[in-house]
């Protein structure tokens, strides 16, 4: 096996490298700080590998174009930030409904509205979950390092291909612009999953029927000889609009259960000293770096503090959070917003445990010292 290449890289750059490793062939988007480097690097790299880049007229169009490209058979991605993420929501719902694999990167900046364009935030956590209208499945991954931005982008593609749904990579500006040395994994060190396709000339192909033992319908690309219909209306197993209540119910059940039944495959997290923790910190993304330092220091001072870091933000790792809160009777959720991820924590916590939240939205990252102070208050 060849030695790994080591490079100094920014989170946004690692995201593109990970995407290319996963087979990215199409990027469409609209520039916005702090995600712009992703577009810039894609515009330079994609043509080199025979892929395509297009700068669209707005974020709505960027989202639409990647759905179109995915239907034409290419692994597709767009990247944006707060205001652009808002604009994409309607078409994100379309991709969820029509089951079109694609990856949407949101490098979170302080909002609402134009907010603080260059400042970090984790204010889009709930928007990622509920941003588009109607019930829909959501998968969101969030990295805490440059290397993890690389790995999770690959994973985002794999999950989107496997479950035929849009997958979000929620980075905060801290990670997006962080420069770190990373070891680039060799191709034999990671898995790449490609969507399942119908066998050529399958006379019985129904575009939206799930085969026995499979999770999602097999996906033919436009132009491969299967003439089928794709719509955002409620549709039957051929993809045609239907208004029957049982068709609607079955479709919604399918959309939700393909994720709900596979949470163990989708959810990943990392734990530090949670075994005997009397106070559990929950932190993710860039904030988890500060939290991990705080935990170390508090341990040195003799406090039994542990860290739970969800890597998959959505679906919410509820089994694990419930379990951990049974042991530690106190939970401190630290996040760069005024109380978003704390909401599901509250919902699934052990009834006797107490939940605190520390949030900050002034554009300044949360420091380890601030977290230590909060730990001491809650402990």
């Amino acid at each position, binding site marked *: 096996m060849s030695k790994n290449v080591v490079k100094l890289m920014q989170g946004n750059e690692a995201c593109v490298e990970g995407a290319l490793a996963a087979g990215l062939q199409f990027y469409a988007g609209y520039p916005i700080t702090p995600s712009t480097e992703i577009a810039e690097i894609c515009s330079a790299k994609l043509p080199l590998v025979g892929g395509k880049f297009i700068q669209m007229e707005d974020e709505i169009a960027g989202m*639409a174009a990647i759905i179109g*490209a995915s239907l034409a058979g290419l692994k597709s991605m767009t990247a944006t930030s707060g205001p652009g993420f808002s604009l994409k929501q309607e078409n994100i719902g379309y991709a969820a409904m029509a089951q079109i694999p694609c990856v949407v990167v949101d490098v979170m900046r302080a909002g609402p509205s134009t907010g603080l364009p260059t400042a970090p935030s984790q204010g889009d956590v709930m928007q990622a979950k509920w941003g588009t209208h109607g019930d829909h499945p959501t998968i969101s991954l969030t990295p805490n390092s440059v290397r993890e931005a690389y790995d999770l982008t690959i994973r985002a593609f794999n999950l989107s291909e496997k479950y035929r749904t849009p997958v979000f990579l929620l980075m905060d500006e801290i990670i997006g612009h962080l420069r770190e040395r990373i070891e680039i994994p060799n191709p034999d060190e990671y898995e790449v999953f490609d969507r399942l396709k119908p066998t050529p000339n399958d006379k019985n192909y129904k575009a939206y029927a799930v085969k026995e033992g499979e999770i999602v319908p097999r996906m033919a690309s436009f132009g491969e000889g299967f*003439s089928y219909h794709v719509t955002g209306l409620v549709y039957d197993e051929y993809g045609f609009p239907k208004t029957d209540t049982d068709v609607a119910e079955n479709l919604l059940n399918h959309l939700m259960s393909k994720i709900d039944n596979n949470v163990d495959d989708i959810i990943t997290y990392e734990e530090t000293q949670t075994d005997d923790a009397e106070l559990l910190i929950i932190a993710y993304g860039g904030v988890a770096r500060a939290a991990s330092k705080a935990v170390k220091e508090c341990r040195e001072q003799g406090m039994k503090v542990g860290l739970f870091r969800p890597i998959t933000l959505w679906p919410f790792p509820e089994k694990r959070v419930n379990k951990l809160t049974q042991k530690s009777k106190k939970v401190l959720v630290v996040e760069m917003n005024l109380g978003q991820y704390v909401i599901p924590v509250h919902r699934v916590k052990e009834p006797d445990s107490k939940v605190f939240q520390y949030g900050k939205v002034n554009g300044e990252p949360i420091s380890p010292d601030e977290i230590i102070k909060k730990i001491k208050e809650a402990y």
Partner: protein
Amino acid sequence: MSLGSPIVKEYFRSDRLPHIWCPGCGHGVIMRGVVMAIDNLKLDKKKVCVVSGIGCSSRASGYMDFNTLHTTHGRALAFATGVKLANPELEVIVVTGDGDCTAIGGNHFIHAARRNIDITTIIFNNKIYGMTGGQYSPATPLHEVGTTAPYGTVDPDFDICKLAVGAGSSYVARSTAYHANQLIKYIQKGIENKGFSVIEAISGCPTYYGRKNKKGDAVDLMNYYKDNALDIKAAEKLPEDKKVGKFLTGEFHHEAKPEYVSEYMKIVEKVQKERSENE
């Protein structure tokens, strides 16, 4: 066009018919124009992709037996741009309404035209929002009424063809649901044109536009188009007073110019070649 005709068998999803359109709606005639043009050109069905937005007109995609994509309101051209750039082999045709294309989708429309991307767009212009029940659109003539303009509109309507030319389309024509053969010819030429082609097809919505504006039923609307369509070439020779109350049809623009996807592919080839030479 009966349900048993060879054209229907070949190009329509017969099991999805009859369609949702009202009796006398002009949209069916225009949809037929699209498949007749495809048939005349003997396009490979497997390589045809029809993309639409949302509206009565946009429901046409579901009835036609190609790769069909019924998207979100106004966004058909943005989806279509992704499809075309991802697979340039596909013949991408967009069917859209006056509201879908020039109101909510106006931005995508002018930018698709500016890029001169090889997509043929057929705008079913019934001068109203049909699907939502007759509100005025950017194509509703000034002072006419809709359910949201009960006293008449005060905002002037777009000349969609001028807009298309101004934004950079390389083929632009207008016809009507009455002039079915001319319409087929223009759609055919639009498909053959390597670039962004716009065919504005004046349609009739007797249910809302006709009724609201006291323009009569489906037959009256058809007669109106028959009597008032003025060919652009004929118009050149007519004195101004003879043009009052008429609207222009014909081919307004046809020009050969660089097409987006081909230009982009040149870049892809160039940088790949340079890279392999450097390695």
